[in-house]
């Protein structure tokens, strides 16, 4: 059963067609990766799915409901949560507090109960704090709980971004180049984390340039070039697909042989 169905999505910026009639499905609990040269339209596609842009054409069905053109927060509320290609954090907020902020989706206390500090609110806050610490443990950032997000080293910032997305208890995660700028050890840890998230039942759509990561972790791979989907298949099929090799040789050269 597919959790996400993308059909005939087009995104134009003036005369430029950044995403051109792209369609694909993502099954429940799959890890699907989108690869393609820089400027292929991967981030734009994410932005369309996550509600940053309203698609010029096409339909996007998430958990059986049309979400194309809905506000980003509404889409997130339904359980589809994205991260950003360029590091995006609550800079002047502590790590712990960031993870509490991100639990907004699952917290329900109303303003009146907050003002009288009702027992239900206190209970909810305790659960939120506990969950924040669980995520910190998962990211191995427990000892940074009270540090400002801004003050973390780059690798930990990228981890925290995933932690923030995770705190929202998503059914599906869109990760935009989570390994960009990470060293080899950090990338391997990240791979472990992504695999773990999938084991916990989260469906993952991943944009990534690191081919080792993509080939080893993905159930299926989608290739975009110039806004068009040029191939889709198992990692082994993609590695030997002549169109894909052609697209990459025409643009960025990528090493598939590793």
């Amino acid at each position, binding site marked *: 059963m597919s959790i996400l169905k993308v059909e005939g999505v087009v995104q134009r910026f003036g005369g430029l067609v950044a995403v051109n009639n792209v369609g694909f499905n993502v099954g429940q609990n799959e890890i699907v990766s989108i690869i393609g040269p820089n400027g292929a339209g991967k981030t734009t596609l994410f932005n369309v799915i*996550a*509600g*940053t842009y309203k698609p010029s054409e096409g339909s996007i069905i998430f958990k059986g409901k049309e979400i194309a053109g809905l*506000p*980003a*927060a*509404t889409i*997130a*509320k339904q359980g589809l*949560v*994205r*991260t*950003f290609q360029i590091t*995006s*954090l*609550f*800079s*002047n*907020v*502590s790590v712990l*507090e960031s993870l*509490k*902020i*991100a*639990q*907004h*989706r699952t*917290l329900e*206390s109303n*303003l009146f109960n*907050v*003002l009288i*500090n009702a027992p239900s*609110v206190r209970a*909810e*806050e305790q659960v*939120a704090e506990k969950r924040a610490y669980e995520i910190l443990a998962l990211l191995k950032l427990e000892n940074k709980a*009270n*540090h*400002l997000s801004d003050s973390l080293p780059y690798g930990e910032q990228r981890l925290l971004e995933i932690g*923030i*997305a995770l*705190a*929202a208890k998503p059914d599906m995660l869109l990760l935009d180049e989570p390994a960009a700028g990470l060293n080899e050890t950090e990338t391997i840890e990240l791979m472990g984390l992504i695999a773990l998230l999938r084991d916990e039942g989260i469906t993952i759509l991943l944009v990534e340039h690191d081919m080792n990561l993509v080939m080893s972790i993905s159930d299926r791979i989608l290739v975009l070039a110039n806004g068009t989907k040029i191939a889709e298949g198992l990692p082994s099929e993609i590695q030997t697909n002549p169109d894909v090799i052609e697209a990459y040789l025409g643009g960025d050269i990528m090493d598939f042989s590793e």
Partner: protein
Amino acid sequence: MKMNKTTTKLLQTIPVLILLAVPVVVTNNYVLNVLIMAGIWTLLASSLNIMIGLVGQLSMGHAAFYGIGAYISGLLSVRLGIPIWLGMPAAGLATTFLGYLIGKLTFRVRGSAFVLVTLGLGEVMRLVTNNWMSLTNGPLGLQGISPVKLFGVNFTYKHYYYFILLLVLLVSYIIWRIKNSRFGRAFIAMNENEPLANAVAIHSERFLVLAFMISTCIAGIAGSFYAHYVTFISPDLFLLSNTVTIVVMVIVGGKGTVLGPIVGAIIFTLLPEWLRAIDNYRMLIYGLILMFSILFMKRGIVPSFARIIKKKRGALHEYS
């Protein structure tokens, strides 16, 4: 981050006890009047802080909501004989509703719409109250607003002092509760990084409107208090300089903190009074303090001191 529980409790109760004892020690009406005015400015600065400090939106019409609250309460009193006990809720509800309307209209389009519309509101209200002679008595102002009376007791300075102290404590408590809840976290999230806030299901527009409604409600209540305390109001309430004063109080005191606007309001109410004796240098000293605090305490007085105290704990937090 966590202080000893009893220390925290003491730090919270001692200032409150001192504030409660003030009228017992101070019987001079002039001093009490200054303190009452400081209380009114504290309400205004605290409420504006929700916009500037928490959600990060500059409302340039805060004095307008203050003035509207004052005029609603004042007119209800003068024209219909309605006491503050009904006038104040009416003023609060009306400004909340106006906050809702303006928020809905301006936060959808974003950009500078909010700043411009709130800026315009003050000007519009000044024109309306100046020219609608039959209702507001125009530039001559509205006189004869009923002073506060409770259980047959006519309020004296001492009573007004306790009344405004109660309001200040209540508002500070409310803001503190909100700030440490999912609502306050949503406010701060929007201020810090709106796309990321949206990505974790925080609807910016909804929370901006909510923040503005809370903010304008408190300003309206402050206006109502002012009208019944001074018993005379005029279109000068809507002057932009009043809004600017509130903004300065928030920024110098420390935006985003509960204590900052209180400190800012007290400083900028007491200071002009103290400097009255050396009137010639008053504006100079005023300006120097502003410059000093902006140059050396970018975040404002309260966060700068908090920073020094917390430094050795390693943990810092912009909004604590």
